[in-house]
């Protein structure tokens, strides 16, 4: 992680120094089998970079939104497979890890305009949904803590709103699809659900329709021309005089 030079100061109290030492404590992690000593406070992504690798696949937003950085790991003396986003998961002593930056997934190609918001659509576009064996592995693996299996089940019932709501925060890292014994592509199902909801089930917004009509009819043309022709001084005055909601 880079640091803002401007935000740095030189004077350190002893308490702060102790904190800093903690920050430079090193732990050993195994990146694809190879041991590296990295700062104890590092994220998995930070550790990989500290070890000297230039990430090409496996980093995008670096802030937990894009899902480029899915990682799986095990901890010493523990049989479990853990997972997380490399950009926001902090390393632990003895962690053995790998990034899964890409997992083969086929996105269905469809014409949203020809779909209906119901179970039959999920059946047609992603029939694999109906193979769910309710093992809940997808939910357990989700780094966002989403109820993934619940939205897969909602898709089977044709409850588009629930698919939308439960998958809203999905970052599409694809770890669920990777672990799914039924080979479902949960994150893609979530996107379909959201688009169906937005397109067909959203609440109608009369004020939006009206505003679009006004603009098309040129209602604001005159005012725009006036604003664009204003001198800087006049514009300034209008700006600083404007009222606030």
């Amino acid at each position, binding site marked *: 992680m880079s640091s803002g030079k401007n935000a740095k100061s030189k004077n350190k109290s002893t308490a702060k120094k102790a904190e800093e030492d903690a920050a430079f404590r090193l732990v050993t992690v195994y990146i694809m089998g190879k041991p590296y000593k990295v700062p104890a406070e590092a994220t998995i992504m930070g550790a990989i970079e500290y070890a000297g690798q230039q990430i090409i696949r496996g980093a995008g937003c670096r802030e937990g939104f894009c899902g480029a950085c899915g990682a799986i790991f095990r901890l010493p003396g523990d049989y479990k497979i853990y997972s997380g986003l490399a950009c926001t998961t902090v390393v632990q002593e003895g962690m053995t890890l790998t990034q899964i930056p890409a997992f083969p997934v086929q996105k269905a190609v469809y014409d949203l305009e020809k779909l209906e918001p119901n179970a039959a659509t999920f059946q047609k576009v992603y029939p694999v949904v109906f193979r769910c064996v309710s093992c809940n592995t997808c939910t357990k693996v989700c780094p966002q803590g989403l109820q993934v299996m619940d939205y897969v089940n909602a898709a089977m019932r044709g409850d588009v709103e629930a698919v939308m709501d439960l998958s809203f925060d999905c970052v599409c890292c694809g770890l669920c699809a990777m672990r799914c014994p039924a080979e479902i592509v949960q994150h893609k199902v979530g996107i379909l659900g959201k688009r169906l909801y*937005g397109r067909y089930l*959203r609440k109608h*917004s009369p004020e*939006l329709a009206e505003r679009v009509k006004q*603009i098309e009819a040129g209602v604001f043309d005159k005012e725009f021309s006036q604003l664009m022709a204003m001198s800087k001084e006049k514009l*300034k005055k209008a700006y*600083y005089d404007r009222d606030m909601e």
Partner: protein
Amino acid sequence: MYPEYMAQSLKKVVQTRAKRLELARKKGPVFAPMNADQRQQALDKYHPDYKSDSKQKVNVGPNKGEALTTEVAKILESHSWVDPEKIDLDNPHHETDLLIIGGGGAGCNAAITAMKQGVKSFIITKLRMGDANTMMSQGGMQAAVSTTDTPTRHYLDAIGGGHFTNKPELVRALTEDGPGVVKWLEDLGVIWDKHEDGSIQVLHGGGTSRKRMISCRDYTGAIIMRTLMDEVKNHPGMITYREFLPALELIMDVNGKCAGAVCYSLDTEQFHIIKAKAVLVATGGFGRLHIRGFATTNHYGATGDGLVMAYRAGAKLMYMDSVQYHPTGAVFPEQIAGFLITEKIRGAGGQPVNKDGELFVFPREPRDIESSAFIKECETGMGVKTASGRDGVWLDSPLIDQIHGEGYTMKQFPAMHRQFIKYSIDIIKDPMLVYPSLHYQNGGIEINDKCETGIEGLFVAGEATGGVHGRNRLMGNSVLDYNVFGRRAGQYTSEYVKKAKTGKLTLKHIDAHEKEMDKAGIYTDLVTPVILPSYTPEDVKIRRLARSGNALARHEMLKTRVRPSG
């Protein structure tokens, strides 16, 4: 969890909260907004752009003689990856009508719009599709949809926020197209936050005089980006995309028109030549240049590549002396330093307070003003210091539930809550520690309202452009920007390619650039575009071995890339 040494200050924040809640419940601002003079003073004294070494004269190219942000001047005064002599332009790997460089919001909007005009496009992008700043916007998009608002009022807010330096025709396009964009996205399946009666939820943002910020919880960009990407991928016959294939240079034809790009596969390290009738640069911003060593909110590939390519091809830049620092970047915990805390937090009632828990600035000043006020507070000893030496002020988020009712924060800010709870900080109970973070490229390649540059066949849209926001962008206007101008680019490139004829391809502008550098006496080992920043510790780099045959390993070449200092 906050460390012991912050407890004292946190206690004060709690103590002053009731009083500040009172203020928030009253009508009117919780702190007096600055007037024009006060604003100017705050900028002059504390904004990073106003520090003496923040700018440097550029000695080559269309803006020659102009002072630009130092790091920008440096990447412009640098060598090309491409040796024109070694590139075979006569046998391009691909030919297309419209080449779109950048698979973010602007690029995808353009591809979909062009498709509707019957024009085929080819998107090349550096990382994966959607690995882009577009994916990350949380707060929302401005659009004058509410009945109390008008597009012309939006115009006034935007141009005032930009200190009256914005190009009027671009501001008009931005604000007038806004409501249409809301509908366009909704029809593609974007889910806007709405009230029970169907009306769209609008909130305040910095510098807005009406509630105008519309959103998709705090995953606004993620929802829009994934919707656009899904649509792009639904039309394989019309839109082709290639990932991990950044462009390095634009290709021109002998008549001075832009006619393609030299690209570079990050997987196989090969050059790819793509010939096109028109080219759209939609490469986004430059946060990963870490201007003045600042941490950034931007995605991994935000290295200002479009600026470099277009500049070498002869396009003029506008306002590349101005950088946007977002007032509220995370400062603690260290792992998420730079992480963006959406302005919507302040829009919803979150207040910035100093180490004594006191308000010191109106929470919704335009960003450059708000940032300057934060820096002032820290530089005058009223901030909170972290163990790793960072400074910050508190952003008091617990007020939000107290104002709007329990559960509001969870519903409106799930991403934010999730990010902090990982480090045992519950933003419903505790404030966040913040400091300005490098956020947005205010300026860029100059365009007109058709996204045209001075070069025939070269169009630009989105964060890579300059002029829309003047020297300071308001929150929510860049999500609107990439939608409005992405669509416009799709429209006007389509009209253009239907008539365009491409002549013989050439890269002689690269030779000319090298000659000009030589003439100006510039000696540098910097090779740009930057493509990816390097976070490899310096000592590790030095230990690296060259590959056999003295060819440098790909990673070693990254040595010449701009590194964050600090």
